[in-house]
């Protein structure tokens, strides 16, 4: 977990304890005591401890390195990603506006449901292509697929509104037409 080091240090209280005057002599005495030759079994355990420490360090190092590699990568947005995000936002704004116009114009609930389903399907397709784009950001075919998907949604909504306008046009009323 990432934490600001300043915040962590803020939690600490400095202990201004002074060292005892004889601390140097005490330290030297302890050091001499540590230099005493060890017996054989003590020697054996000493090597075991060193080996264990090495294993521990290597394991911790490996895990740390692995977890560093697997941790969230630093995501740098490329110019084309920024551009596509802008394009997507513009299109979605237009699509939403056209959807509102369509819902206001249409009187057939089934028609609205069919379009809602179609737009959802297209959105699911867009998400699929987005995954591919993240894997291959310089493939023009994928970029074109993304833009085409957005264009299709807008076209469908504009076309159906035009169709409804045509149906609402004034025309000659007949019981039937025979030619």
């Amino acid at each position, binding site marked *: 977990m990432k934490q600001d080091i300043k915040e962590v240090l803020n939690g600490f209280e400095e202990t201004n304890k002074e060292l005892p005057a004889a601390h140097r002599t005490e330290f030297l005495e302890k050091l001499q005591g540590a230099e005493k030759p060890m017996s054989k079994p003590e020697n054996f355990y000493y090597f075991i401890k060193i080996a264990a420490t090495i294993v521990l360090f290597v394991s911790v190092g490996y895990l740390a390195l692995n977890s560093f590699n697997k941790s969230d990568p630093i995501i740098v947005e490329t*110019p*084309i990603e920024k*551009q596509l995000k802008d*394009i997507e936002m*513009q*299109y979605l704004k*237009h699509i939403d506006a056209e959807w509102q116009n369509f819902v206001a114009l249409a009187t*057939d609930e089934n*028609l609205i449901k*069919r379009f809602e389903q*179609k737009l959802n399907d*297209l959105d699911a*397709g867009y998400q*699929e*292509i987005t995954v*591919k784009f993240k894997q*291959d950001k*310089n*493939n*023009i*075919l994928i*970029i*074109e*697929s993304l*833009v085409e*998907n957005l*264009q*299709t949604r*807008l*076209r*469908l909504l504009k*076309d*159906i509104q035009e*169709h409804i*306008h*045509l*149906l609402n*046009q004034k*025309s*000659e*009323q*007949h*019981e*039937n*037409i*025979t*030619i």
Partner: protein
Amino acid sequence: MSMNAQRKQIYSKVFDVNVQTKAIFNLDDSAVIIEPSDDDKVHLDYAIVFDRFSMMEIDSLISKMKIEATLQNNQISLKTNNVLKSHEYFTYNGTGSFYVDNLFKSKKGNKKDSIFHKLKDSIQREIREKYKEKPLDSLGSWFKVKEENGAIKSLKELGGVKVVKGQFVIKIPSFVKLTINAKTAYITFAGEIKNELSVSLKRGKLSAQQLINEYNQINIDDAGFEVEVIKNGEYTLNNISKGLIGSIYNAQITSEFSKIEIGEIAKGVSITDFNSEYWFYNWTPNFNRFNMYSEYSKINLFYPDSKKYSLSTFGFNTKHHFKNVIGEIGPNKKGGKSKMMIVGDEKTAKNKIKMDIIHGVIRFGKDVISIPRS
């Protein structure tokens, strides 16, 4: 491609097959050409031609491609991923910003006031010419860079586009039953394809010269669809932005949200549609009977040449455009469907066009259909 272009064979495999053999192709982000085999073998060949790419770049590209083909229990399984006929990659190291020109302008241009009659041959020619079309020719027109000095240049002008051209050709004997499941794939059937086909394609394009098996089941979704000759089979066409069918015989189409032009309708054709636009240009002399069931559809119909036909529409809330008149027939007294328009004598006519349509627009014409604008 320049003189320095290099060719590299990526994959080649041959399988011996017999009449019991089945083939299943799973194609993802791939383009394949499927054509009849001259022998009793299935041949798979993929080669690429590249220019201005380093070997390292090519190796990196190839490493992303996946082609696996096996023959087990008399079944060929082919899996491909990222095997396209054309990879166009861009690189741009300048400081300009990307922008898209005319973002909201329709690719189709302005709405037309008239629809002109087309011959079956001209539709088939249009399909053939599209075989040659590079998939991304249109891209350079809208994908541009605005440089710091304000100059707007296409990526191609800046030399930022590199192209790898590939061709994956599959030759298959006509007796092998073929199932294709594809996503973002460009499938071209060359020649007369007699195989029994079961195709499911989502995004991409299906092009074909002749599909003729009576058990064909073709499902296309959000993709292009261009076939010179359809004989037999069932077709589900959803969201086809520009569909072209040269001629169709004894086949059923179920469609929605599509735009489909048909050069010639022959015997045994029926269409069930929701909210598509259709163009019916010609009819064979013995088309016998054509049935259409539709809701919220727009139909542009050119009359048959022969006078021995009848045309009737049944339904309600449908605009009929003929000459300069727009006629409308409301629901019957019970609020249901009724006979709306009759051309010719249904009892004696040899050929009958029957349309069951609600909330629709039908435009009729001989050589030209005028579209009145509100």
